[in-house]
């Protein structure tokens, strides 16, 4: 039988959003300093698509995808997405077998009571309990409880059993299962598994007219520590953090206008001009805007407020690196259940891909 003529190859293959991988990444637990579960998923997903990959001493995954053939003097371009998430860490055990914990990263204490968690490498189910409202006075029914007063109940029954099953230092992650329905993504740790999954997709596509250095970083939530050593090792000419940004676009009470929304859900990828740690390099900001407008992709500029991304650490590496950040807007980050829109994520991926494809040394010319 004669072979069918091969279909004409598209000049550039679009990076494909992989929702199965995103679900696996979001469901895996990787509290800062314990990123192994996500690292393994990332390594499996990228190995066949990169020219070099290694895990550094802190646990960062550093992968290289060489520039497209015949690219003249390609620049080293660093793309970073952090693997770690906020969560809890077991610190002690009560006589009844309940677990004391501290929070890791910026977790709001107001979102912890009544939440199920998965504890330790064995992912033992547990719950953060409360005294029943029926027994509390009117005042205590509205009072916040400090995390130091909260306990995780895994049903251990005794201090010895608890200590044996979950020694101090074990992490506890929120138990929320990832869900994608009707264009809405709901899950824990979308900050920054959305970035990780996008970065994987970018590595699976390509090559690009840059030497792409992908860093899946550790310990972003406890001080951008992974990105710092990764950027030193990579020594890039430019860097871009792929992250998520809080969409605080909820209505104000009594219909007061909310003018401090940071970013809006559904309004497209978020370009950082400035945040609490970094003033983005304007040449990169303009490049992202130009690429988005040329491609007809929606985008929004993040309100310049507090917060920060791995871009801050990359900017400060060695003799300094021009950086920017590109994020998917999501609501309720750093809580057990964040919400994002699939369209925003896919457009973030498209914009990042187009920005890479159209990146030339000319972008950084003064």
């Amino acid at each position, binding site marked *: 039988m004669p072979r069918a003529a091969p279909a004409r190859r598209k000049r550039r293959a679009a990076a494909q959003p992989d929702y199965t991988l995103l679900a696996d990444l979001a469901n895996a637990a990787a509290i800062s300093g314990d990123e192994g579960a996500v690292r393994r998923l990332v390594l499996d997903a990228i190995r066949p698509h990169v020219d070099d990959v290694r895990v550094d001493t802190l646990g960062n995954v550093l992968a290289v995808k060489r520039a497209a053939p015949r690219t003249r003097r390609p620049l080293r371009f660093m793309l970073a997405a952090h693997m770690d998430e906020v969560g809890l860490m077991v610190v002690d055990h009560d006589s009844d077998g309940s677990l004391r914990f501290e929070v890791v990263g910026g977790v709001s204490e107001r979102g912890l009571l009544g939440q199920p968690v998965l504890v330790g490498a064995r992912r033992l189910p547990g719950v953060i309990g409360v005294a029943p*409202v029926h027994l509390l006075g009117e005042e205590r029914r*509205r009072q*916040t409880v400090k995390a130091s007063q909260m306990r995780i109940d895994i049903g251990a029954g005794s201090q010895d059993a608890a200590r044996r099953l979950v020694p101090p230092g074990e992490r506890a992650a929120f138990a929320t299962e990832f869900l994608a329905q*009707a264009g*809405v993504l709901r899950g824990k740790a979308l900050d920054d598994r959305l970035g990780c999954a996008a970065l994987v997709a970018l590595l699976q596509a390509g090559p690009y007219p840059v030497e792409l250095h992908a860093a899946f970083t550790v310990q972003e939530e406890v001080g951008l520590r992974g990105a710092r050593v990764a950027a030193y090792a990579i020594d890039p000419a430019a860097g871009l953090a792929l992250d998520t940004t809080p969409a605080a676009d909820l209505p104000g009470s009594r219909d007061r206008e909310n003018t401090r929304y940071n970013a809006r859900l559904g309004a497209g990828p978020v370009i950082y001009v400035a945040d609490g740690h970094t003033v983005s390099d304007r040449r990169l900001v303009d490049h992202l805007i130009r690429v988005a407008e040329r491609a007809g992709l929606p985008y929004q500029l993040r309100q310049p407020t507090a917060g920060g991304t791995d871009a801050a650490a990359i900017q400060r590496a060695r003799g300094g690196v021009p950086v920017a950040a590109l994020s998917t807007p999501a*609501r309720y980050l750093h809580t057990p259940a964040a919400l994002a829109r699939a369209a925003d994520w896919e457009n973030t991926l498209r914009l990042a891909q187009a920005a890479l494809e159209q990146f030339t040394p000319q972008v950084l010319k003064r």
Partner: protein
Amino acid sequence: MALDLAAHLKALCAVPGLPGYEQPVAALLRAAWGPLTASLGQDRLGSLWATRPGSGLAPRRRLMLAAHMDAIGLMVASLQGDFLRVTHLGDLDLRVLPGQLVTVHAAGGDLPGVLALPPAHLLPRAHREGFPPVAELLVDTGLPAERVGALVRPGDLVSFAQPPRELLNGAFTARGLDNRASLAALTVCLEALQARDHAWDVIAVATVREEPPGGYPGAAASAYSLEPHLAIVLDVTFGQDANTREFGYRVFPLGGGPVLGLGPNLHPGLHAALRAAADAEEIPYTVEVMTGNSSTDATAIQVAREGIPTMLVSIPLRNMHTPVEVVALKDITRAGRLVAEFAARLGPDSLAALALD
């Protein structure tokens, strides 16, 4: 076939059953109780009755075993852009609401959502500290306003959405264990009675609408219609743990067996009879002193018609009225066995023996 209690309870807790909308629970119970009873029926308000006729001569005496099917939840009050404002059905714990997974039960299908606490700068000054009332929270489906407007209407139900999970040592967590745990105990009881002779008719009743304030219309209507000679209500009570230690005698150990109520709402003779049955069967139990009414279906059943001797058997439960309630499976088994043992002991003279003087 032996009951797989964890699987049964998981199934019961996996379906919504908000006050006034208990049919998903009733449907599961029809399937579970049908093979264990001679007849099934539902009354005008929706409570499910399942009857095991006794072996005594007609007219036989009737024992009513009641547990409520409804669980606390929320209801859509209004739409605001992408978001929903909600009100509560039953007494919610405001402290556990921010960040909870919810399901909006819209006419066109279920929508997943999150219960959101707006950032402090969007709240009225008075609510920036502590936990604000339900009216300040928003339900977010993640959908844009035009989709929300097309799909959701005021009055749509919103239930908590965490799936049930098994903890260690037979502990079990789910939303709605208040009072699905007791319904599972009734299943245990009906199954135990399969192997026992009992002279009285035993009627298991899954009641509607216990949680919202305003009396106990489901239990009251069933007690009126069934006209039982005795009634036992199964419900949950406060479980002991790190968070409730300060409440001393008002909380009960998980795994310590059923809790037998004692107080004016409950018949002292029935209390003694249940203790006797527990002692005979070597079932551990504790006693809960209740100085007023019990805030359960027993409140209404005791004063139905010309008065019904009523007793309350409770299952200790942690984190009551939160999406992560916790029970010990063995307490459910023991509560079911205890009630079955009591039912099997009822004879022609039992009622007379309960006379107060």
